[in-house]
């Protein structure tokens, strides 16, 4: 098949592309010199309309004396993926930063810097992202030589450099988090507030960084990685298991049995229903609509009971593994499930009708936390956040996997770009998911649910793309020998979406901060990392650990 994107890039940068490899259909790898990467990425995103999917650095010093850095770009409208590969030689651990030209690379480059020790030259804000304040600057956990068993001693006195407010003037510093009532995960925002108006925002996370990728690369086998992948996130765990499994199965050229594909769809969509209902409840709570929390979760609990019936656990289903699924859905359980799904649909319709027509709720959501379509594209945000800003993207539709190609569903898109639009997109998406679960269970084909994968070739670069409740989950995988992954890079949707938070918060009031942050549906443990964000700010100020401690909660 002719690949217009590769052609366009070859035409525009004739001397830069050193090699073209088709890894598999619609996944092409381009070799670039490291000095060419920023221009090519900028052109591909800006002029060719691509989306930045992920970026991963891999330590190959043991075998090749070099590091490999891959940018993965996607074209949803064409169903294409492009890997831009560049190599950094050992001894010269630096590369030109892409961030000044394409801000969406910000976090990725900082992560590569701290975890592999490769310096992005020209990065405007190279602070820590996911490692703790007390982590030494010269210890790089994702290098293959680093052993899990030898962490440096804990220190409580380490500080973090926060950005100063952008404008001169009098501001109150209002800390938000790490333990805020409305957000169930630790993340730390610092607002500079003028009255109740938020003037600027800085953000520090990494509270949730558990180094799961390192564990997977050192301790796990191909068969057990899905279980740690599920624990990347307790809400959309199956999405991660599916994305990993997809990447692995594609690397092995393996097709799972037909029945397994349909069961996977049912599981993934059940998870989306519970996640969206959860979000609708939590968002209601964030704007002080506690009955919304109670009612949406009342309906949600039914799907949890159903999940427990089908998988044996309310979440962390442990269903999706390489080769298929672990449990079959027995006929009697399938019938119960179909009945239950109808009940859930009825209950949800009723609640949708009541809660989402509530004037006081609408008043709190409308016009709040705007994100323009241009900004959404520039930052390569994903999922409902992008779809509420008029960017139509859905990996289920655009990069079909499992049985999605044979199922009927729509992708709700809105253009307003405010919190209300995000709410509506999710609320309608829930209907689509209920429809999908129904279709999948009604048309479940016969046959086995698991087949062994005979051979997984080493050193294959593969990608798994799954549309999770929060957006496209991108798993980048390089297979290794001896039953273990060589590199596994999880790009959870929140990782792409959180950098948009400061943009949406600026100029809004403190009262709306919770729901604006919430409107991303942040899954901090997914993003697993975090720090800064405010690209625009210049001056910095050092904050000691003591100052942080004073805020407690």
């Amino acid at each position: 098949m002719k690949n217009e994107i590769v052609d366009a890039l070859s035409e525009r940068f004739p001397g830069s592309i050193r090699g073209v490899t088709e890894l598999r259909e619609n996944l092409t790898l381009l070799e670039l010199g490291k000095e060419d990467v920023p221009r090519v990425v900028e052109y591909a995103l800006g002029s060719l309309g691509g989306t930045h999917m992920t970026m991963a650095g891999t330590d190959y010093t043991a075998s090749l004396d070099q590091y490999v850095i891959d940018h993965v770009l996607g074209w949803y409208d064409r169903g294409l993926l492009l890997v831009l590969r560049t190599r950094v030689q050992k001894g010269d651990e630096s590369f030109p930063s892409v961030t000044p030209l394409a801000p969406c690379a910000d976090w990725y480059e900082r992560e590569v810097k701290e975890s592999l020790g490769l310096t992005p030259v020209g990065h405007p804000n190279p602070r820590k992202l996911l490692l703790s304040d007390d982590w030494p600057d010269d210890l790089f956990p994702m290098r293959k030589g680093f052993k899990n068993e030898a962490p440096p001693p804990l220190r409580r006195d380490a500080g973090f450099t926060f950005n100063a407010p952008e404008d001169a003037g009098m501001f109150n510093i209002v800390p938000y988090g790490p333990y805020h009532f409305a957000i169930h995960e630790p993340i730390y925002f610092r607002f500079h507030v003028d009255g109740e108006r938020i003037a600027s925002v800085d953000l520090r996370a990494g509270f949730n960084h558990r180094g799961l990728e390192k564990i997977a690369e050192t301790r796990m086998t191909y068969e057990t990685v899905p279980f740690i992948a599920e624990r990347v996130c307790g809400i959309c765990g199956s999405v991660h298991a599916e994305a990993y499994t997809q990447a692995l199965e594609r690397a092995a050229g393996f097709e799972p049995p037909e029945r397994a594909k349909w069961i996977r769809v049912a599981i993934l969509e059940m998870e989306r229903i519970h996640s969206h209902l959860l979000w609708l409840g939590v968002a209601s709570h964030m704007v002080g609509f506690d009955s919304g929390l109670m009612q949406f979760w009342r309906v949600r609990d039914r799907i949890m009971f159903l999940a427990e019936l089908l998988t044996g656990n309310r979440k962390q289903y442990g269903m999706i593994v390489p080769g298929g699924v672990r449990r079959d859905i027995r006929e009697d359980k399938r019938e119960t499930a179909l009945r239950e799904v109808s009940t859930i649909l009825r209950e949800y319709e009723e609640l949708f009708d009541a809660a989402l027509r509530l004037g006081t709720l609408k008043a709190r959501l409308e016009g709040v936390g705007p994100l323009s379509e241009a900004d959404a594209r520039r930052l390569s945000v994903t999922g409902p956040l992008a779809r509420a800003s008029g960017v139509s993207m859905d990996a289920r539709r655009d990069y079909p996997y499992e049985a999605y190609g044979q199922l009927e569903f729509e992708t709700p898109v809105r253009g307003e770009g405010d919190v209300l639009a995000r709410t509506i997109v999710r609320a309608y998406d829930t209907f689509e998911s209920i429809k999908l679960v129904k279709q999948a269970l009604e048309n479940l084909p016969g046959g086995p649910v698991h087949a062994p994968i005979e051979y997984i070739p080493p050193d294959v670069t593969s990608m798994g793309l799954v549309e999770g409740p929060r957006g496209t989950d991108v798993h980048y995988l390089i297979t290794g020998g001896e039953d273990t992954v060589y590199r596994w890079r999880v790009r959870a949707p929140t990782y792409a979406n959180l950098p948009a938070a400061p943009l949406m918060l600026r100029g809004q009031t403190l009262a709306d901060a919770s729901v604006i942050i919430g409107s991303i549906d942040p899954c901090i443990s997914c993003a697993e990392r975090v720090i800064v964000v405010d690209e625009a700010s210049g001056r910095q100020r050092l904050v000691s650990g003591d100052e942080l401690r004073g805020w407690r909660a």
Partner: protein
Amino acid sequence: MNVAILALNVVLAIIAAPLIDGLRRVITARLQNRAGPPVTQSWHDIAKLLRKETIPPEGAGFLVSVLPALTLTLSIAMFATISTVTTQSPIEGGGIVFIELAILSAFVFAAAGSASRNPYGVVGGSREVILATLVEPSIIVSLTTLIVLRGSTTLDDAPIGLGFGVPLLVAAVAYLLSVLAEGGRIPFDVAEAESELSGGPLMEYGGPPLAAMKLGLYVRSLALFSIPKFFLTALLPPGSLGEGLSVTVIALYLASLLLCIILVSLAESLSARFRLVEASRFYAAVLALSLVALVLVYAVPGAR
């Protein structure tokens, strides 16, 4: 001044106020299809807080140790000025004292928040001040309407056979609406707003001081909830109520309390929290309504 009734009121405040809050929690829970706590829950909460250790807010001084107790004292004093289960009021002209204490206790509560120096406490405190300046006038005006109609600044249950008229009705509605707002529950919990401000003024307090602040808020609510009864008893023909404890007064009292609690629960379970702007707009409308009532008292012939 009737010391016996005063003492009765103080005891009543401490015993009944947490029960009122407990009842609100139960009704709200039922409207959310769940079991809810026992009615006595808020009591247990206060008792437990008293058993806890006090950790003073960081970096704050003298004020934080005094203001919580002051909040409680003012609230109890406020409740003590009115007649509750008896027909007589403990204090002559208690209506004026009541209004003054209502205003004062709101500001002391706000000050207690700001004194904790926690950014959320400060923001919550400033919100509380803004809200109080907006909502207290409507309470003052609608209460004044009642006082003018009854022709007495003493808040007691003397039946005066007041004719039922539009001014009284409008004043009662305006009062109920402002009481809703004063209850500090959703959608009016703008100052405490747990999911925005993590409890605002209350955030830095723990143990006994928190018990004092909480009980203060409960008693204050109870006091405000006690007023609608006067709109009802005023309608009764003169001499229909005896002296001292009165079954009719108690029945009317319980009914009006229940009405207030149900209204608060309904508002709490059927709406999202107002923002400061929306709350102010609501209060402005309520204030306008109460002013209309006051004007009507003089405009409608024979209203007084």
